[in-house]
């Protein structure tokens, strides 16, 4: 985005925040339901000073990271298998496509039935939700490698390992990163859903609790933190994706 466009966006966001503040002051927005931005900001600062809140954030972060670190290798492994081994792939891909289209959130009660309300349950559900995105990404990545380039590599004397390193890895990198990014979005959503639905800790649990107790400034503050963290991770992965995929632009 060009510079002046960035300025427009920043001004727009600032404008909305000021509008919000103004509407609350004028009494057009119920200050109990939607406290003014200033109040939310104060609550945010206060929350970040509280150790139990920081612990909750850490718990959520840990669940997200663990689920991600399990789902990605497993998903890629399955994805590569489905893409590279012809009969297995043809056999199982419709199944995977179907499962990919099934909404995973509705299976949350099942996970609680099995694992009870616990951290392993949340990690397992996160893995369950994320792994399908990664599988699809793995398949797409392998299929995106132009076969002719493999011939070129062979003609110029590349060995097996060289073909993987010099052709497969750079060709697949952008798609793999994109599926990791999308997987992370699903992952974070899944973990937070678990925590809101039923948990003993984590920032989602606190958000639900603050909602129940009508502690709105804290609720909004937590929303802001979660949103900022999620968007931050997403944009970081996106910029890596853009750098490794710059060659994909059409002329």
């Amino acid at each position, binding site marked *: 985005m060009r510079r002046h466009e960035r300025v427009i966006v920043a001004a727009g966001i600032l404008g909305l925040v000021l509008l919000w503040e103004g509407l609350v002051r004028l009494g057009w927005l119920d200050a109990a339901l939607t406290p003014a931005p200033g109040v939310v900001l104060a609550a945010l600062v206060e929350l970040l000073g509280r150790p139990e809140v920081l612990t909750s954030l850490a718990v959520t972060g840990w669940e997200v990271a663990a689920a991600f670190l399990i789902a990605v290798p497993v998903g890629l492994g399955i994805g590569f298998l489905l893409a590279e081994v012809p009969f297995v792939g043809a056999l199982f891909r419709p199944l995977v496509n179907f499962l990919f289209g099934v909404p995973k959130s509705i299976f949350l009660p099942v996970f609680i039935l099995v694992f009870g309300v616990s951290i392993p349950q949340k990690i397992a559900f996160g893995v369950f939700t994320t792994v399908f995105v990664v599988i699809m990404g793995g398949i797409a990545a392998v299929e995106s490698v132009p076969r002719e380039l493999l011939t070129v590599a062979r003609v*110029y*004397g590349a060995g097996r390992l060289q073909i993987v390193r010099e052709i497969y890895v750079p060709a697949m990198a952008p798609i793999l990163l994109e599926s990791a990014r999308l997987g992370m979005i699903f992952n974070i959503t899944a973990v937070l859903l678990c925590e809101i639905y039923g948990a003993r800790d984590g920032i989602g649990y606190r958000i639900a609790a603050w909602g129940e107790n009508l502690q709105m400034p804290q609720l909004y503050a937590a929303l802001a933190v979660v949103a900022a963290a999620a968007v931050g991770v997403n944009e970081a992965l996106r910029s890596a994706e853009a750098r490794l995929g*710059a*060659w994909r632009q059409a002329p």
Partner: protein
Amino acid sequence: MSKAVLSLRGISHAFAVDGVAVPALADIDVDVPDGQFVSVVGPSGCGKSTLLSLAAGLRRPSRGVVLCDGEEVTAPMPRKIGMVFQEANLLPWLSAIENVAFPLKLRGVAKPQRLQAAARMLELTGLAGFEERLPHQLSGGMKQRVAIARGLVQDPGVLLMDEPFASLDEQTRMVLGDELLRIWSETRKTVLFVTHSLHEAVYLADRVIVLSARPGRIVDDVDVSLPRPRTFAMTSSERFGALKERIWRHIRRAERP
């Protein structure tokens, strides 16, 4: 007397399709002397590209043997045989100079040396100044120049070219054809040039090999005794027309059901 740099002896090849052997080439015997420019033409499906992939060592022939400098070709020999494909097939994430240097990288040549060699090749193919461009920033003709530079960077004795200009527009084809002849006259490689254009086959080569329809057999081996350097004016000469007609008669016979 020039010795044969590339020899195809008794080559026959068949593909297995659903358990049935589909013949592609039959009884091919060709000796290409050092420094000769040979075109290969034939009707669609006659096995021209298969012939080239056998010569490159990408496949092993069902019968017969391919020899390069007297040595049997059982696998690609990147230092002796370079190849240029119809689609340039450049690695899209590498710049032009990195693409040209790629074969050297596979061989383990150090970066400064291989970039230097690549730069020289790009200059030879007329792309000085375009080293850092990515393939998506290059036109079709420029991409093929990079591909040719890549084929020559290891200074192989033989250059195999599989319809390299087929996906280019006519004007670019003509320009690149002349450029190829210029590069060839400076480097004197042995060239095996597959094309479906009779005009191109005669214009560029010393010798035209004509294949029959599948399974491809050699039905003619035409000596193109036109003087070099070739000029556009030659293409309207009687001799040129006669050569084209001779080849065309073979192909027309093959295309008829």
